[in-house]
């Protein structure tokens, strides 16, 4: 029997109090795990999507032009530049169908559109099915051209219809919404040159876009982290309270331990071990509950495919390590008080 086993015994002996103290840590750790996990997973997913979608430079109509499409002459000007290559164009416009805005988007790579029902070709979003009543086989007339729906996708929450880019461009009088391209030189310099030399366009580099998105997701992550950390902090404060009460209740016991030869450091160590153990167990259980929460939230939000990304090892270990470390720090003051107890007075304590 040593002091560390004695600390473990103390937690077991005071089951209700230990459980209530741990409950605070468990709630904090579970919230931290679930909120940060879901946000981190979504951040990774968004970044992956962005990386896959973006080229070095994205050229779009400038905000002040009043148009969301670039004409053929502008497109040619961009395509003829020697500092740009590997072009990809996207055309997108909206059409009023029975009083509802239906967005028509050109598709270059059908892998980007996850068809859940039917086949590629003319694919509508679930929202189109729900709001406009279309289904596979339905005929939709856009810009005078009749399209027969071949599939349904879960992409987009709004009514969308995805068709081959060449078809959509043709429908939009050969106009283009955005051109993505690789650059030979520094993307930022090339983007600046494009803006200067081509009238009415705005050019952004991939890094700018990614930075913007990363900044936004980073802020979301920070915000979620702060909220969950407050919950964990409340749990940790209860560790200070519990350990202080424990030290007060065990004044005589601590006096006896000192009298029979335990050093102040050993006494301090046993209190810190006890508080650290509360933090570790609370953190561990909290993480397990948080992971369960992630699975539930991801399924509720229809994001099950991102679940692995929502459970990064750094977060799991970080929450457990953080709970343990913070609990040890919370035990510091009670431990110092315990080690400074006057033995004679402690032995008189009943």
């Amino acid at each position, binding site marked *: *029997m040593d002091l560390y086993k004695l600390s473990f*015994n*103390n937690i077991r002996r005071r089951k209700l109090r230990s459980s209530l103290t741990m409950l605070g840590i468990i709630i904090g750790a579970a919230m931290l795990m679930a909120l940060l996990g879901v946000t981190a997973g979504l951040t990774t997913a968004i970044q992956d999507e962005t990386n896959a979608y973006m080229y070095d430079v994205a050229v779009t109509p400038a905000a002040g032009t009043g148009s969301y499409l670039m004409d053929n002459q502008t497109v040619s000007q961009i395509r003829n530049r020697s500092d740009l290559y590997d072009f990809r164009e996207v055309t997108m416009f909206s059409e009023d169908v029975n009083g509802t805005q239906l967005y028509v988007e050109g598709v270059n790579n059908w892998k980007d559109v996850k068809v859940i029902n039917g086949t590629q070709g003319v694919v509508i979003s679930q929202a189109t099915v729900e709001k406009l009543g279309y289904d596979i086989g339905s005929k939709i007339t856009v810009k005078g051209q009749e399209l027969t729906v071949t599939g349904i996708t879960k992409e987009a929450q709004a009514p969308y219809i995805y068709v081959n880019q060449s078809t959509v461009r043709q429908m939009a009088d050969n106009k283009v919404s955005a051109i993505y391209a690789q650059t030979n030189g520094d993307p930022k310099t090339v983007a600046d040159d494009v803006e200067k030399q081509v009238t009415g366009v705005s050019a952004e580099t991939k890094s700018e876009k990614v930075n913007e998105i990363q900044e936004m997701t980073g802020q979301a992550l920070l915000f979620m982290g702060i909220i969950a950390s407050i919950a964990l902090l409340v749990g940790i404060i209860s560790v200070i309270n519990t350990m202080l009460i424990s030290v007060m209740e065990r004044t005589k016991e601590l006096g*006896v*331990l000192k*009298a*029979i030869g335990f050093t*102040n450091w050993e006494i301090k160590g046993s209190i810190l071990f006890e508080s650290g153990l509360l933090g570790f167990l609370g953190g561990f259980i909290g993480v397990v509950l948080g992971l369960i929460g992630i699975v539930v939230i991801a399924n509720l939000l229809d994001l099950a495919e991102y679940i692995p990304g929502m459970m990064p090892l750094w977060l799991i270990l970080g929450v457990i390590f953080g709970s343990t470390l913070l609990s040890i720090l919370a035990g510091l003051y009670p431990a110092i008080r315990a080690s400074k107890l006057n033995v004679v007075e402690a032995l008189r304590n009943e």
Partner: protein
Amino acid sequence: MNKQVLEFKNVWKTYHMGDGLVNALAGLDLSLDEGSFTAVMGPSGSGKSTFLHVAGILDEPTMGVFRINGKETINLSMKEQARLRRNEIGFIFQRFNLLSQLTSLENVMLPMINKDLEKAKEILDKMGLEDKHHKRPTQLSGGELQRVAIARALINDPSIILADEPTGELDTANADSIMKILQDLNHNNGVSIVVVTHNPASASFADEIIHMSDGKIVNMDSK
């Protein structure tokens, strides 16, 4: 000349009480030889407990010199004092002070430096507690509790045992039994023993009885 286990030279211990000062020990001079068995008696407030606390390095003298086995404790760090308590002193308290959540065996092993289960069992057996190894304090009688406390005090083979009213909570038969154990330890193992007691019957087991009053020794009887 015998080796001295405890030495008090003009030791004072002064406490603040209200606006005034109280001398719990007032210039105490005392030397106890290795292997001695001493009882300390005196009325409440005579300084017996303070004497025992200073002897056990639980409290420091305000003035004067105190040595245990030749070591002056005032020069030792807190850690060294704790080590000295663990290695060379065995404490026995009036109210046993066993840890209620631990069994007899675990209580005995708690201060053990080199954890030796067999040695702990052997000491408990010698105390007549063969069948009480795994009993918790709440399952033991007063006499049994004090015998577990003696076993705990002996576990690191101390050179001195300091007992504060060890029979104060016991009936006459158990009190005599505990004092007999201490007497045997002194006679057979050569362990120095200091017992603070109010009970003349308990004190009679000692070879030397010191009477204290107002923080001073007023009388010493030897057998």
